[in-house]
């Protein structure tokens, strides 16, 4: 989260509503370790990353939804044969993200 703090400060100063997504757990092979973070602002701007680019698009959708509902929750992305075309990590791992409004 460290590397996105400066941008978060700027967004907060502008009064933007922001959702923060943090990797809290990785099973199997995953590109980023726990602590990797990205943030999405209410107009859809994105900073940071939580994978090698595999799931960021889906995270934006979830983050905007959570920003709307205000309901913070865990969201997981994995890969299985059944979901070969769904959103997942091509490296075969599963990442668990905690996504919440940055209202604290």
């Amino acid at each position: 989260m460290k590397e996105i703090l400066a941008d978060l400060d700027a967004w907060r100063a502008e009064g933007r509503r922001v959702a923060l997504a943090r990797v809290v757990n990785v099973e199997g092979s995953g590109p980023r370790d726990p602590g990797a973070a990205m943030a999405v602002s209410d107009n859809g701007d994105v900073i940071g990353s939580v994978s090698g680019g595999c799931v960021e698009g889906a995270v934006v959708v979830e983050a905007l939804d959570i920003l709307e509902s205000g309901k913070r929750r865990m969201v997981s992305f994995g890969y299985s044969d059944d979901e070969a075309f769904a959103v997942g990590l091509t490296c075969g791992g599963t990442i668990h993200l905690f996504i919440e409004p940055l209202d604290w």
Partner: protein
Amino acid sequence: MTELYERLREAIADERPVALATVTEGRNTGAKLVVEPDGDITGTLGHPELDRIVSRDAVGELAAGRTGVRHYGAEGQARETDVSVFIESFSPPPIMLVFGAVDFTAALARAGKLLGFNVIVADARSVFATVKRFPMADRVMAAWPDEVFDVYGDRLGPHDAVCILTHDPKFDVPAVKRAVATGAGYIGVMGSRRTHATRLERLHEAGVDEKGIDRLMAPIGLDIGARTPEETAIAVCAEIIANRTGHAAPSLRDGEGPIHRPPAGG
């Protein structure tokens, strides 16, 4: 409402270690605790006993530089899983001390910054140790190794690196002597195998023991055929990473023959 964020941000900006504990599942999901190394806390996870146990664990995780999820009972009980808490450690950036204000230094300082190091460049010759020559460094010291280690020696730990590029016994013997007395995770010394052989004699004379000598990565860097200052900087940084992770990678130290050879099949 923003006290937690401010607390966290200030500690990170001041390069003080700090941990952030967040309930990710269970009662009070989203509740937070900012924990400082002395056990000082801001916020609450919803129960004083849970706060006490989590802050204790967070201090330990912070000291180890670990980030991950732990499970507790609603009142902090061990071996229960009502509540999942994500404890994130924010450690100050690791330190890279670079001795010798040479061309290799500028490239290494840039590569060190890329890896997130707090880079300090030092050389006793004040004409060379200038901010103008090393604008990428966080600090440039016109100082002898002793003065540098008086400031940073006690702070060096497993994630910190000392790179001695002077290859002049006048500077590198005192630098090595002080470096091996620290907890630095990586100590690399530049110079050919011949330079290092004569340096070893001087180090023995200066009273550096075998245990200290064993810690030295010399010649410095991985054996990837690096030639330019930039390539050498990558070889050194890659060795620092391999050293920290314990992964096998061919260090120049463990090979033999000239460091610079014609390209294979060339």
